[in-house]
């Protein structure tokens, strides 16, 4: 039984990590008033780039850094389209997302189906040996802790810093932000690139730690979960993180329940993570005032500067 608990709890932290990285990036992007639907493609690009670079260089840090860079560059294309040419954000996001999936295939072409040794889990000696807690809390890979730190940092950034206020102002009313002298285009472009970098890191966590191999289509829809998490988590970092952990936990419990041979249709079980995550997030976010307060008022609306 203890084995199972460790499997679910430790697995949940790892499974949610790619989602959290990408969702924290997307949160900042949406808070600045831009809806970026290309997460799936940017995660795939990061996953492929991170894998190839880590394999070539032998360093996971190089892998993560180049994944962030590659996806940030890709998101620059999206920024150019939406912030520069004022293209429809939904259409541009879908297009760049598909582009990203294609780019990932191209980058990973010669590495299709190959494996890599995953990044080392931390070892705190006696602490990591503790029953249950040790494996769950003190023996994860470093990026798991970085992802948790990123939730705290993003919460602080958006709620407590001037930069966060500027980002939110740009997302609420770009005209007002512009009139008091904030560079809307620059803020949105930087937010988009930050979102791209975070999605890239999330993707790289998939190929460098969670599933240490590269195969085309490996992201398998996680980018779309991220988009849903941000909306259902009502643009609040802690709620988004709860959603991500819930999603990870339920998808692991599903596999366990199937193995136990309970007579529940496996199709229903496979749908469970989505159903439960959405229901729970909908319930904790049912207050319409909270939704209205947190929803960036100018989300998805192209901004044309009034000269």
């Amino acid at each position, binding site marked *: 039984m203890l084995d*199972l608990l460790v499997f679910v709890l430790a697995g949940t932290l790892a*499974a949610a990590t790619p989602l959290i990285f990408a969702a924290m990036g997307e949160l900042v992007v949406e808070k600045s008033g831009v809806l970026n639907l290309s997460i799936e493609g940017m995660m795939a690009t990061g996953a492929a780039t991170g894998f190839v670079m880590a394999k070539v260089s032998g360093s996971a840090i190089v892998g993560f850094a180049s994944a962030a860079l590659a996806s940030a560059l890709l998101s620059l294309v999206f920024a150019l389209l939406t912030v520069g040419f004022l293209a429809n954000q939904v259409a541009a996001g879908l297009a760049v997302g598909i*582009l990203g999936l*294609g780019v990932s295939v191209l980058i990973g072409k010669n590495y299709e189906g190959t494996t890599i040794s995953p990044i080392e889990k931390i070892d705190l000696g006696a602490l990591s040996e503790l029953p249950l807690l040790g494996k769950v809390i003190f023996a994860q890979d470093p990026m798991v802790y970085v992802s948790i730190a990123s939730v705290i940092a993003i919460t602080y950034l958006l709620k407590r810093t001037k930069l966060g206020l500027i980002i939110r102002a740009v997302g609420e009313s770009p005209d007002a932000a512009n009139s008091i002298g904030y560079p809307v285009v620059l803020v949105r472009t930087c937010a988009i690139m930050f979102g791209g970098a975070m999605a890239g890191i999330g993707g790289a966590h998939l190929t460098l730690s969670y*599933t240490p*191999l590269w*195969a085309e289509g490996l992201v*398998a829809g996680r980018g779309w979960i991220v988009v849903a998490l941000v909306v259902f988590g009502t643009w609040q970092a802690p709620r988004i993180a709860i959603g991500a952990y819930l999603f990870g936990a339920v998808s692991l419990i599903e*596999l366990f329940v199937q193995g136990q041979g309970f*007579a529940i249709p496996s199709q229903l079980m496979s749908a469970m993570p989505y159903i439960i995550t959405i229901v729970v997030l909908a319930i904790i976010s049912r207050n319409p005032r909270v939704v209205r307060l947190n929803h960036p008022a100018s989300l998805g609306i192209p901004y044309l500067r009034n000269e």
Partner: protein
Amino acid sequence: MYSFIRYLATTSRTAIHQLALAAGLISASAFLSNAHAADVLKIGYIYPSPAGDVGWAHELDRGRQAIEEAFGDKVESMVVENIPEGPDAARIMNQFAAQGAKMIMLGSFGYMNDGLKLAKRYPDIKIIHASGYKLADNMGNFQTRNYESAYIAGIAAGFVTNSNTVGMVAAYPIPEVVGIINAFTLGAQEVNPEITMKVVWLNSWFDPSKAQESARSLIAQQSDVIFSIYQDTPSVVTVAEEEGVYVVNTSSDMKKYAPNHLLASMQISWADHFIEQTQKVLDGTFKGTAFWGGMADGAVSVESLSTDLSAEQMQTINEKVEAISAGTFHPFTGPVVDQDGKVMIKDGDVLPDGDLLGINWLVKGVETRLPK
């Protein structure tokens, strides 16, 4: 049948494939510009996925290499990989025809109808098609009897397990997969009647991360042998190696991904069939046939059996391999009962091929029910 899986896998990944198509087209045009002497047999190959290190397209590509080795200068290959079923595949086929291909290998179930149209339009082009069921004078198809190798791998699993629990990771419960699970279970039960099987259905054609987590959950539930069914990546195999449990996989040999804990690989091999068909095309005697190749044909085999198996155990395994190859033993020989104890194959009877192709029940010993 296996490429039917690929067919579904590709439709679910259409977006990716359509992009990857661009890459495919570039390589296509590169070789299409190579005009050669007229007496060379040009053979076109279409794969539904990239020919990676392991997996379905990799095995098709090994078949192509076997043809090239056997016939040398007499054949010329044109390969396009990662082509989704549908208009793109049809276009590539027509391009092959226009470029003078006289033989075409179609690597996926979903190419069937376009292939048949092509066969009717160009009677002089010979087509071999993976796992379809439609035939023409100039179009044949091929599939493998994977249940034979599954039975042998099952025996090995029955020998090595201590917990008497095997965990299986499978995509969807289609007949091909159900047949493999049943044969594997029957093989394991032959040497270890106490053994039980747990199955996790991924309900997804392609999700290596979910496959890995499934394997971990099965290991946490005391499985000490993991059976990775039609995972085109080494996802499950690497988890088994990491966790120190035995693993069996399908399609390709994955020994290098689990050097210490690979119990067996259920290898498929198209080389003999491809060479035979190419020879017939060269001789002008090609006629479309349905090929369902087993151990006797060299189309399936069990490779990389673990050295942890004792000499005695290996002898049992080898005897069974010989019996299956010689046709004196069929894995689905009665009495076989299903999960509810109902007799599905009577004592001494053998399940007919037709029933095997549509098998939709699991044998006793498999704990997980079929999703209905």
